[in-house]
C-alpha cells in the first residue's frame, strides 16, 4: 500500500502513465480533505448505487400497490418505512426506482449539451473572425432566454414526456459551456504547441479535438457538475407541472404533484420526494464546489 502511494507521489515519474496517475492522486488528496465535498460525493455515489440495484433494494413494486390494505399508510409503518401513497404503493420503493429517472435525466442532458457546447465554443475560439461572431451571437441569444420558460414551450410543442423534457433541458443548457470553452480556447490558441502541431500538418478538426478540447475539460466538468442541481430541479419542475415523466412513472417531481391533493391529511406523500430532490441536488452542488476547488482554482467566485 505504502509503496503504491510512494510510486504515485514520486517526484520523478518514470513514465507518462505514472505522471498522470500521480497527478490524479494528488487531485484526489486535495478533494478528500474537503469534508463537504466528500459528503456530496457520497450522496451522488449512493444515488448511482440505488439506480443500479433498484430491483434488489426496493422492498415493493413501484408501479402497483394494494388498494385495499396498504392505502396511505403513514411513515414508520412496518415494511413501509416512508409510508404509502393513495394507490397503496410504497413510497420508498418509488423513490428508489425514481433515482433511475433522475440519473438518466442528468446523464443524458450532460451527454447532449456538453459536446454541443464544446463544439460551438472551441470552434468559435479557434477560428475567430466571423465564425466567432456568428456562433457567439447565437449563443448569447439562447443564453438570454429564460430557461424554464423555453423548456416549457418546447415540451408544450413536442408533447409531454420524459424524453422531450430531456431534449428541452439540453437545448437550454449548452450556452454556458460554449462560452466557457471559447474563453479557454482563446487562452491556448496562440501557444507554441498548437503552432507546432499545425506545422506538422494537423487539420483544424484534429487540433481542436486532440489538443484544445482536453484542455477545456476540467473547467467544463466543474461547470456541468454545478449545473446538475439546476437540471434536476428543472426536470422535477416539469414533472410537477405534468409535462415531464408521465404517470405511473415514479418521477420525484410528478410524485410531489400527486401528493399535493391530500397534503393536509397525508403530508408524507408530497414531503418525501421533495426531500429526495433536495438531498440529491445538494449533493451535486457540494460535489461541484469541491471539484471547482481542486480542478479550477482560478474560476472561483
Amino acid at each position, binding site marked *: 500500500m505504502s509503496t503504491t502511494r510512494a510510486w504515485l507521489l514520486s517526484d520523478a515519474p518514470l513514465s507518462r502513465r505514472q505522471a498522470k496517475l500521480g497527478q490524479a492522486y494528488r487531485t484526489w488528496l486535495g478533494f478528500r480533505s474537503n469534508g463537504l465535498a466528500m459528503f456530496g460525493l457520497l450522496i451522488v455515489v449512493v444515488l448511482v448505487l440505488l439506480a443500479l440495484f433498484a430491483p434488489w433494494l426496493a422492498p415493493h413494486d413501484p408501479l402497483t400497490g394494494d388498494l385495499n390494505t396498504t392505502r396511505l399508510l403513514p411513515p414508520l409503518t412496518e415494511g413501509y418505512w416512508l409510508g404509502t401513497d393513495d394507490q397503496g404503493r410504497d413510497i420508498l420503493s418509488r423513490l428508489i426506482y425514481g433515482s433511475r429517472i433522475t440519473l438518466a435525466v442528468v446523464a443524458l442532458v450532460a451527454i447532449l449539451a456538453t459536446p454541443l457546447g464544446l463544439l460551438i465554443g472551441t470552434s468559435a475560439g479557434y477560428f475567430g473572425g466571423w465564425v466567432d461572431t456568428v456562433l457567439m*451571437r*447565437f449563443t*448569447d*441569444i*439562447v443564453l*438570454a*432566454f*429564460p*430557461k*424554464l*420558460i*423555453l423548456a*416549457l*414551450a*418546447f415540451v*408544450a*410543442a*413536442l*408533447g409531454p414526456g420524459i424524453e422531450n423534457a430531456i431534449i428541452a433541458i439540453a437545448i437550454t443548457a449548452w450556452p454556458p459551456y460554449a462560452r466557457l470553452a471559447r474563453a479557454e480556447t482563446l487562452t491556448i490558441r496562440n501557444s507554441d504547441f498548437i503552432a507546432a502541431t499545425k506545422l506538422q500538418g494537423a487539420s483544424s478538426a484534429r487540433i481542436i479535438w486532440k489538443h484544445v478540447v482536453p484542455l477545456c475539460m476540467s473547467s467544463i466538468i466543474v461547470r456541468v457538475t454545478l449545473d446538475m*442541481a*439546476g437540471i434536476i*430541479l428543472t426536470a*422535477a*419542475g416539469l414533472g*410537477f*407541472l*405534468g*409535462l415531464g415523466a408521465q404517470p405511473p412513472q415514479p418521477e420525484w*417531481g410528478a410524485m*410531489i404533484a400527486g401528493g*399535493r391533493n391530500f*397534503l*393536509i391529511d397525508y*403530508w408524507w406523500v*408530497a*414531503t418525501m*420526494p*421533495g426531500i429526495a*430532490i*433536495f438531498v440529491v*441536488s*445538494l449533493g451535486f*452542488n*457540494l460535489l461541484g464546489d469541491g471539484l471547482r476547488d481542486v480542478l479550477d482554482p482560478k474560476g472561483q*467566485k
Partner: protein
Amino acid sequence: MTTTTLSGRRGARWIMKILSTLGTVAVTFLGLLIVTFLIGRVVPVDPVLSVVGDRATQAQYDAAYQALGLDKPLIQQFWIWLMNVFQGDLGTSNLTTRPIAEDIARVFPATLELATVSIILGTAIGIPLGVWAAVRQGKLVDQIVRVVGLVGYSAPVFWLGLMGLLLFYFKMGLISGPGRIDLSYEYDFTPVTGLFLIDTAMQGAWGAFANVFSHIILPASLLGYLSLAYISRMTRSFMLNELGQEYIITARVKGVPEWRIIWGQALRNAAVPLVTVVALSYASLLEGSVLTETVFAWPGLGQYLTNSLQNADMNAVLGGTLVIGAIFVGLNMLSDLLYTLLDARTRNRK
C-alpha cells in the same frame, strides 16, 4: 482643449457601447420571435381543426386553412405574425376566447406585485447578510450564509411552497392560503393599478390590505429567499474583492472608522456590479413565478401560462412565452447597460 477632445472621444465610445447593446437587443428579440414562431409551427395539433372543429366539410376546412394563411410560404407567415405581434395582437385564446394580449395585461399586475415584493425582501436582507459574511469571512456568520445559499440553490421551489402552506396555513393558521385575496374583501376597493397592496393602501381599505398582505407574504418570502441566496453570495464575493484593495488599507491607516470603510467605501464600489445582480435576479423571479404561482393559485402570468399549457391552448402559451421572454431579455440587457453607465472604470478602459 485637450480635455474636451478626450471627453468627446469618451462620449463617442460610450454612445458606441450603447448602440452595440441596442443592436444586441434587437438581434436577441428577433431570435426570440423566430424561436417562438417555430415552436408554434412544430406543434402536432392541427390549428385549422381547433378553429372549425372536426365535423367541418372539406370546403370549410380549406377556407379556414386559407384564412389562417397556412397556404402561404413559411417566411411570409412569419412576416404576417410579426406584424401582428408588433401591433400588440398575439391572437385569441381558445380557452378564454379573448385576445391574449388582453388576458396577459389583466394577469400581469399580480406577477409584478409578487416579484417586486420578493425582490425587495431579497435585496433588503441579502445585501447586509452578504456584507456581514464578507467582513467575518470564515466565521460562523459566513458559514450560515453559505448554508442558506446552498439550501436556496438545492431545494425545489414548488415543494418549499407546499411545505410552507402545510405548516403556516393548514397547521398553524398564521397566514391566508392560496390566491391573492379572500372573496369577502374583493369588493372593499376598486383595482386601479392592479397592485393590490398599493390599491388597498391608497383607498384606506386596511382590512383588505391586511388580507392581501397575509396572502402575499408566504410566496413572496419564498421567492425572496431564492433571490436572497443569490444576492448574498454575490455581495459576499464582491465585498471580499473590494476589502482586499489598497484604498481600504489607506483608509484604515488614515484612521477612518471601520463601519464607514465597510458601508461607505467598500460597499459603494461593490454596488456597481450588485445593481446588475439585482436586475438579473428580478428577471429570474419572473421565471420562478411559473412554479410558485401554480402552487399558490396566484392569478398571474405564470399560472396563466401553465393553465394554457394544460389545456393545449398553444396561442396563449406562445404569447405568454413571448412576453416573459421579452421582459427577461429586456432586464438582462438593461443590467448590461446599467453596468456601463454606472462604472466609470468600464467607460475609461479600452
